[in-house]
Structures are given as structure tokens and as C-alpha cells.
């Protein structure tokens, strides 16, 4: 009996001390999901999610946008199952601090963009023991405000976005959790590091968050929910150092067919008058008019195929265009939100999820299942319009 007990204990001990998978390899993309363009337009930040736990953690890999050259020596490691990524600019307009939602550990990890050397590098300390610098505890912050009865359970932060106070004096980091459904608003200090803020309870399934217009002196924030038919609406204000949030009625789309799988990506038009959301119940792009005074009008739904995921807005000569990834259909749809119709479908690699668009008319799509970034030309004046012009790494 004693031997059996010792054996079982040994097994559990081994499990507890066994690190997840092998060391991260910054030269490759493992299940890439989050992607963001630097505000200066010179770098792309790609989050490998380590979805299969095949590595010790996730990575954030910077890629030069002029040459599309990955910079593995500049990458950092963060916790596993990382989600969305955002990058805040310093006064010179260049990205200075990046943030990643990390589900494993229920934290946001953040890294500085060091441009002092010849090659830009990401810095977030180094815990040591890993070939790629692992962000240290000083570069991690817990989302605030989980309800007391949920403390101790997982939060699974996934949604991440940047915002600013109505008077544009303060900047905020929004973090939304899948499991406990809390939206945290963390003010950024002068060095762009997140500090404790406030949180509100929405409902489980938060996926994406965007900063909306100022309504009656408050910043209006929209949060999509993958588990319920809801786009949550939250008003945020800041008085001195105190941030306050107020939950308003959420938005829903009336439909007779529901799959139980609802919203994914969210994006806002440049003038913050149009909100677009990827919906899977049924597959479509929801286009909402944000009317003066804060009312919301449903402009319409644009039917799509498959599993809409990420959403990004690009300017074009004929108005804005919305790009939506179709995760199961391995394609990206281009939608005219004014006419409510699909302009084009662009076949890409397997499992497109995250998408971001640079100021130079390039869409960067994370091909989750093909472990690469697909680069699509979205410049309407270009001869390669809506063609895949590059892959990182190339096939």
C-alpha cells in the first residue's frame, strides 16, 4: 500500500514539475492568433498562442514591415494561450509598449519596444532559464475586479484594446475575460505601464473590445461576446486617477437561427460612427450605426460563409472596406459596409483568424492552422489588389 501511495505521489510530483512542451522557437509561428501593426507602421507584432501546449509558452515576434523579415532575436516569451495584442505609441508616434492577453495565468503581460539599437527589440525583463527572454513578473498585471465569488477561478483574459479618456489626457488598456466575463479598464501611467484600475462584470465569453465615441462626456466602449447574443456597452470616465465604468444595455441581433456561437471580432470606422462585428449565428458581418446621442441603429447584416473571426477596417477610394477572416473557409471577405454586400473573397491559408491592416494597404492575417502570416494587398489602386503578396515564413 505504501509503495502504491509513493508511486502515485511520484507521478503527481513529476506532473507538477514537468514544464509544458519544449522551449519556444522564435524562428517559427506556433498557432499564431493575435496580430497588430505598430502605430508607426514599421513593425508587425505576431502572437504565437502555443495552442497545443507544445512549447513552454507563447511568443511575441516582431517583423519588419519594410522587408517582412522576422526578428526572432527580438522576440519575447509570454504565458501560454495568449490572445489579442495591442501596441501603444509614445509621443513620437512610434510603438513604445505592447500588451498581450494571456489566458494561462490570467494576466496581461506587457513589453517595451526598444529602438535604441540597430534592430528594434522587445524588452520585458527576463526570468531566465529560457532561450527566449521570458517576461518577468514586473511585466505582468492581473486584470482588476473579478467578482469575489469567482476569485480563484480562471478568468481567461483574451480581449484586449487600447482607449483614451474623453478629454484625451489619459490612456487606458481594456481587458476582457472569456471565463468570468469581466471587463477591466487599466489606466496607463506615463511610461505606458498598466496600473490597477476598475472592472465591471458583463457576462462570460468576452472576445474583442473597441473604443467608441464620446457620448455625454463618457467614453463608450463596445465588447463582443462569443457565448451570448450580446455586444456589451460600457461607459467609462476618469476623474483624476479614478476610473469609473457603467454598464449600459447590451446590443443583440434578432435572428431565428442560432448556433450558440455568437460574436467574434469588432472594429470601429475611422469616424467612430460605424461599428462592425463578426457574427457566427448565423455567419455574417453585423453593421451598426452609432447615432449622435449614443443610440445604435442596425444598418444590416451581410451574410458570409463559415466561421467569421477577425475584423479590420481599411480606407478605400469609395469609402471604407471591412475585411473579415473566415476561419473554417480559409478566406478573407471584403465587405462594403455602405452597400451591405461582399465585394470580394480572397482565398488564404488554413485557419485565418486575426487580421490587421497597415497604413500602406497591406492586410496581415494569422493563418492559425498553417502557422504563418499571410499578407494580402488591399490597396485598390494596386495591380495586385486582393492577392496574397507574401507569406511569413514563406512556403
Amino acid at each position, binding site marked *: 500500500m505504501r509503495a502504491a501511495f509513493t508511486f502515485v505521489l511520484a507521478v503527481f510530483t513529476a506532473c507538477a514539475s514537468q514544464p509544458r512542451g519544449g522551449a519556444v522557437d522564435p524562428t517559427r509561428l506556433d498557432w499564431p492568433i493575435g496580430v497588430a501593426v505598430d502605430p508607426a507602421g514599421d513593425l508587425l507584432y505576431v502572437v504565437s498562442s502555443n495552442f497545443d501546449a507544445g512549447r513552454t509558452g507563447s511568443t511575441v515576434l516582431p517583423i519588419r514591415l519594410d522587408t517582412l523579415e522576422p526578428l526572432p532575436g527580438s522576440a519575447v516569451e509570454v504565458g501560454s494561450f495568449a490572445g489579442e495584442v495591442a501596441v501603444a505609441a509614445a509621443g513620437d508616434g512610434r510603438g513604445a509598449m505592447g500588451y498581450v492577453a494571456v489566458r494561462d495565468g490570467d494576466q496581461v503581460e506587457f513589453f517595451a519596444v526598444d529602438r535604441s539599437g540597430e534592430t528594434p527589440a522587445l524588452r520585458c525583463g527576463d526570468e531566465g532559464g529560457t532561450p527566449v527572454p521570458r517576461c518577468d513578473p514586473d511585466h505582468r498585471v492581473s486584470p482588476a475586479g473579478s467578482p469575489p465569488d469567482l476569485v480563484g477561478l480562471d478568468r481567461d483574459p483574451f480581449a484586449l484594446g487600447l482607449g483614451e479618456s474623453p478629454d484625451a489626457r489619459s490612456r487606458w488598456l481594456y481587458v476582457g475575460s472569456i471565463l468570468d466575463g469581466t471587463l477591466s479598464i487599466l489606466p496607463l501611467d506615463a511610461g505606458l505601464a498598466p496600473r490597477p484600475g476598475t472592472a465591471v462584470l458583463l457576462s462570460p465569453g468576452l472576445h474583442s473590445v473597441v473604443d467608441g465615441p464620446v457620448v*455625454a*462626456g463618457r467614453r463608450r466602449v463596445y465588447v463582443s461576446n462569443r457565448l451570448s447574443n450580446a455586444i456589451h456597452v460600457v*461607459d467609462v470616465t476618469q476623474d483624476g486617477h479614478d476610473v469609473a465604468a*457603467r*454598464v449600459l*444595455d447590451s446590443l443583440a441581433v*434578432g*435572428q*431565428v*437561427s442560432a448556433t450558440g456561437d455568437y460574436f467574434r471580432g469588432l472594429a470601429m470606422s*475611422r*469616424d*467612430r*460612427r*460605424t461599428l462592425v462585428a463578426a457574427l457566427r449565428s*448565423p*455567419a*455574417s458581418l453585423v453593421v451598426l*450605426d*452609432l*447615432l*449622435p*446621442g449614443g*443610440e445604435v*441603429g*442596425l*444598418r*444590416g*447584416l451581410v*451574410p*458570409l*460563409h463559415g466561421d467569421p473571426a477577425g475584423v479590420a477596417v481599411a480606407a478605400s477610394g*469609395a*469609402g*471604407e472596406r471591412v475585411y473579415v477572416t473566415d476561419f473554417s*473557409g480559409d*478566406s478573407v471577405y471584403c465587405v462594403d459596409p*455602405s*452597400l*451591405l454586400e*461582399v465585394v*470580394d*473573397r480572397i482565398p488564404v491559408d488554413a485557419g485565418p483568424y486575426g487580421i490587421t491592416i497597415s497604413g500602406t494597404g497591406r492586410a496581415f492575417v494569422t493563418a492559425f492552422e498553417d502557422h504563418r502570416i499571410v499578407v494580402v494587398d488591399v490597396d485598390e489602386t494596386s495591380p495586385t489588389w486582393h492577392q496574397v503578396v507574401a507569406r511569413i515564413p514563406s512556403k
Partner: protein
Amino acid sequence: MRRGPSRIAWSVLFACLAADLAACSRPTSAPIRVFRRPVGVAVTCSDTAGNPVPVSSCTSSSVQTAWVLDADRSGLGILSLADGLHTDTDAFLPGFNPLATLAGDGEVLPDLVEVRASPGSDAVYVLSRRGRTLVRVSPRTLEQTLQSLPCEATSFDFAGDGPLAPAALAACPDPPGLVVVPLDDFGATQGSSLPVIAMSGRPLRLDATGDGTLAFVTHDAPDGERLGYLSRVDLATGTEDRLPLLPECSDGLDDDGDGWTDHEDSGCEGPDDDSEDPDRPGLCEDGVDNDADGRVDAGDPDCGPHGVSEFPLVPWPACANGRDDDGDGLADWPADPDCYGPAFLDEGSPAPRTVGRPAVTPDGRFVYVPMTPPAAIAVFEATPLRRVDVNALDGPSPNVLLHRLGIRDILLTSPVVGLAMVQGETGTRAFAGLASGQVLSIQVDEAGEPVHRPETEDGVTVASSTSLPVVRVRGARVGTLDEVSSEYPTFGSNLVAPVPGVADQSSYYGVTFGGRPEQELPETWRVTFEGVVPGAAGETGFYDPGAATLRDPYRDFCTLGVEPGDHVVLTSPPAVCLASDPTPPGACPEVAGGPDGLPPGLVNLCEYRVADVGPDRLVLEEVAGGRGLDVLAGLPGPVPYEVRAAEAWTVVGSRSGFLHNRVSAGDHCEERADADLRFTGRADTSLPPPGAPLPSCPVREGASGIVWSPFTNPAFTFRIFPPCRTGEDLRAEACRLVRDTEVSFGVAQGRAFRVAATGGFPVGLQAVGSRLVAVDPVFGAVHVVDWGTMTLLQTLY
């Protein structure tokens, strides 16, 4: 020694192979998805010998073939509606292959946007927008003929038996016009040589009358442009007539003929203004000392070099500040079409737009045009061309609420994704595919009389209802009515209960409906104690101490519904306005924090009573306990303010808004000519007479000792029960009513519309005999609906 397979094994293997091959050689109706993203469908009919049968003569005994436009696969799927069998157009490739529409160079034509069958079922036409080609497909041989077009046409239709017949018409946005494609000589003429009927605007979608005499065209409205009108083109003469779809100040037309359009026209106050007339001089050219500073027009230095306003506006309005505030690449008036004059505050203003194609009734009498937001169908009479005010009190479907709200169209619950017309035995029906996954039946006329109303199910009664009301105080959620204590106001019940003495009627948490569901909208209502009158707030209040008047050049207080007795409250109050909160500790209800924007323990005393109301001015007087008007006079520059109901509740619907009967007339306010007491947005609390105690806590329904003050609007009635608690001496004790206490509830309209639920998106609706055919891009399905019974007959994949 190893042995080979036995004879039995070989036999089994052979049988399996034979079965597989046999299966492969036959079409299958197995419900597997074949279409990837179908966006349109055309139906042809033939007799059993394969001879074409006109669609208008098509019966259930005809062979009906659906030609499904699959946008993602860039081809036409061919599906038999009788047995659900697909035609595989390339047996060499695995799976069912759609018919690829090929250009002359053998490349697949891109951007297929529409498919239509000829009325005689002898051809199917497919439009390739970016390919600038109309393709004709023979249903018998699948032979394709290409006709090049001179433009990226977005829509097409046939010219019936009209003056251009036989021809197809294609709508070209750039250059604007209708291209006439002769069908007799299809494909023989270069696109650049085809005749074009020149038009205005950017033609987008078209539908022609069945007799081919008229075509109705909507226009593209890319960002920054407003082309909100419907064109009627006389196909015999090429004459174009235009009629606004949007308010005059958003329609892209010079409606008053003064040479100026929409935002350029000084008669337009904003995009919702439905009149470009009269043209009013600006504040710096009207010869009036608007801001009462003793200086007029150009003599007032506040007008500045651009003559924006006599009022000292700081900061300058978004439409005159030299910046591109809305990020559309255009700065200020008149460059930015979102600016209606230099003093306009907001560069961004979303307007309704057309969505999808118009639909003409089979007799050519009416045209339906889908709009959004809100989801609606605008109705036009074809000849003479005029907009039908569907809801007018003397209109075809009178509705007192919708008429008051200025809604002229058929209001829907969800945006239209497809529209088809059918001539029935008793009248015309329109069928609207909705983004909610339903097909809705709309009665166009009955025995020749216009109706224009969504049909409801006969004999089916659905009770109007509300959601469980939610109580918030100063924006913070307290709970639902069944959760909060008596210290918060209620409607007297937290239950759904029968109304005593009234058969088949229930009270929903104290809200009772009036039994006229057509006068209800599905919306959220907010009942707020001393709430802000919607729209009656701003940053530009200019106080004239001589007249004790607060003026705001951007507001029309009459139209907003401000009344004498309301209170003006300064927002962002300076320190001189603040005082300690006199509320004693332990007062009920318990409220966390201070009034909005103030630290706990402080109150704002800069609050004034409105003694008189004019369109842009409020005459003020002091209230007991408040700061004097001298404080207001001493504040520099424009003051931010809001106007609140005093000792009363505002009742505001998310779609109905703040109902009232006030309008502006010259320099004063007056009652509307059609004033109706039911149009009110103000409610009172039912309380004991002054000085009398509460009879009980909670107050019981119908209790004596209470002056009951029912609130009634066109949709419902409720009474507000006072908040209270039971004191230590076991006596009922009234609690204070806290400003910005809100009780909100949603209303579900009690109407059972005649719908067929398809799920997904029923797009490309076509009427074929007694059936409607639609495709669903999301689920790759073809739906067949019996429009007589509104039942879904079959769904094919």
C-alpha cells in the same frame, strides 16, 4: 506458404466496387452542402419534353430548375426543385461543379452579382460586375453567350414588351446611366457601342415594370455623398424623374431650386431636416443682435473672419475649427458634407440608406424600396411619381404613433435582404426576406385599395408584454423590480397578473397595454425621475442677465418639449455652485456616491426654474434654496447646462423618443394643431396629498389616501408607486425620490406577423407560381415557401 484472398473476398470486393461505381453514376439528393455562398437564384420552367414554359405560367407540374448564383465558387449551380438533384457540369472533377461562366480568354468571370431568368424561361442571364459582362446561358444546352458592357454594371432587368423590347437594362454607376442590351442580337455588339440612357447620380439597383415602360433606379451612396433619391426612367423617352428617399436635406437634390443642395443650403439645419426652405441668413448676416451684446453681424467681433456666429463660441464648432474632426479627409463647412453650416457642431451624421433592389408590383402601380436604419420599406406610387405616406391619418394604413414620429414607411423588425411581388386573386402581396431569418408577407392592396401593411395571422392573438423592469440609480444598477426593496419606486407589482375586471388582459409588472399593438414599437422605455429632456443639453448656453435668459443657438427648446417649470441645471458646476449635501444620514434609499460628476457629500445648487420657453431661449428664475441668477451672470463664456423635468419623471422610448405636443412658431412655442394628450413623456409619482402620511408601506394598489396619477401614452399605462420603508415605530415612512432614479423595461409588440421562418438569410427572393424561392448564403440552402400558407415546403442543399 501464404495464400491469396479467397474467392469470397474477391466477390465482396467486386460487389463493393460495383456499388460505388453505380452510386457515382447517379445524381444524389443527399442533403450535403453543395453551394458555398449562394447570393441569388433564378428559376426556369419547362414541360416534361424540355420545352420552355414562361415563368408566369409555371405550375407545380412544370419542371422547375433553380439556377443558383454561387459567389464564392464563381458559377451557377443547377438544381432541380422537383427532386433536389444537382447537375454536375464537370464529371471529371470530384463533387458537384457549378457551371463556370467564362470570359473569352477562358478565364472565369469575376464578381458575379446577379442572376435572372428571362420571362419566357428560354435563357438565364448572369451579370459579372468587374468583368463588365452579361452572360446568357441556354438552359437546354448550357451554351454561354457573352455580351460586353461599357461599365461595371451593378444590376439588370428586362424591358418587358415595352418600347425597348426585347432588351435587358443594366445599371451603370459610372458613367451614370442605363445600358440597353438588345436580346435579339445578344453578344454581337461591342459594349462601347451599346445605347445608353443617361442618368444622374450613381445608379445602383433597378427594377422595371412588367410592361417595360418604366424603370426604377436607386443610387449608390458611398461615404461622403448623399444620393438618397429614387429615379423613374421613362424607357420610351429616356426622361428621368427623381423623388427623395431621405429628408430633403440628405437626398442629394436641390429641392427648393435655389442652386444649393443639402448641406450647402442655408435652409438646411441638419441631415434630418425635411425642408431646404426657407433659406435663412446666418447669425452674422441677419441684422439682429443675437447675443445681446450690443453689436450686430459683422460689427460683432465674435463673428470672426468667417462669420460663424455672433455668440462667442469657444472652442469653435467642429465645422469651423479647421480640423477634420470625423477623419473623413474633409475639414469644415462647406467641404465636409456632414457640416450643415459653419456653426454646425458635428461633422458626423449617419443617414438612412437604401439597401437591396427596389421591387415594382406586377401591375406597375407601386414601387417598394428597402431602407435602413431603421429597417423599413419606402412606398412610391409609380404614376404620378409620389411618395406614399403609409401611416398618415388619412393614408392607407393610418397609425397615430408612427405618423407622429414622422415615419412614412412600412416599419419592419429587421432589415430587408430580399423582396418579391406577387399578384394574388384578392390583391397584391409583397414578400420581404428579413435579416432575422424570416420571410414576411405584406399586403400591398386588397381589391384594388392600397393597404401597405405587414400581414398578421388571422385568429392568432399574442399579448404585448414587457421585460422585467430594471431599477438604476445614477446609472448604477440596483436590481430588477422583484429584487429591489420598497425603498425604490415601482409600478406597483413585480408580477405578471390578470387585470381585474378585464378579460384576456394582463398587467406586466404594473404596465398595462392599451390593446392597440400597431401603436406599440418593440423598444426600451426609460422612466427617469427628474430626467434630462432628451436633446435639451449643451455646452453653448449664453446667459443674458438683462433678460434673465439663457440662449443656445443650437437648440429648439420648443421642438424638444421643454416646458415652463422645468429646471436648468449647470453641468460641470464651478465651486461657487457647490454645497454640502443636506441629506441626513440613514435617509432612504441608500445611494452610493454623489450626484453625477460630483464627489460624495456635495450637491449642485446652480439650478434655475424655467419661467418661459422660446425656440432658442429659456427665461429663468431662481428656485428656493438655489444659487441666485447673479452667479450665472458672473460665469465667463458659454456655460454647459441641461434641462430636467422638475418633481416629475421623463418617459423616453428608444424609438418613440420623448413624446409631447409642443412646436415652435416664430419666436415662441405653441401646442401642435393635432395635439393629443396621449403624446406625453412626463409622469408624476402617485403620492398622498401634501402633508398627509403614507397609508402603508408598500403602498397597496388602489389604496385610499393616495392621489393616483396614471401615466398613459398610445401604447401603455402605468402608475408610479412611491418609495417607502417601515419606520421603527412601524409606521409607513416615505423615502426621498432621488434624481436619476430610472426604471426601464423593454416592450415586445403583441402582433403575430404572417411569416415563414427559414433561418439564415432568405436572399434573392423569386416568385414562381404559388411558391417563393430564396437562397441562403450562410447555410448554402435553397428554400421553397408556399406563399399562400407561408409554410416552408422544402430546403435543398
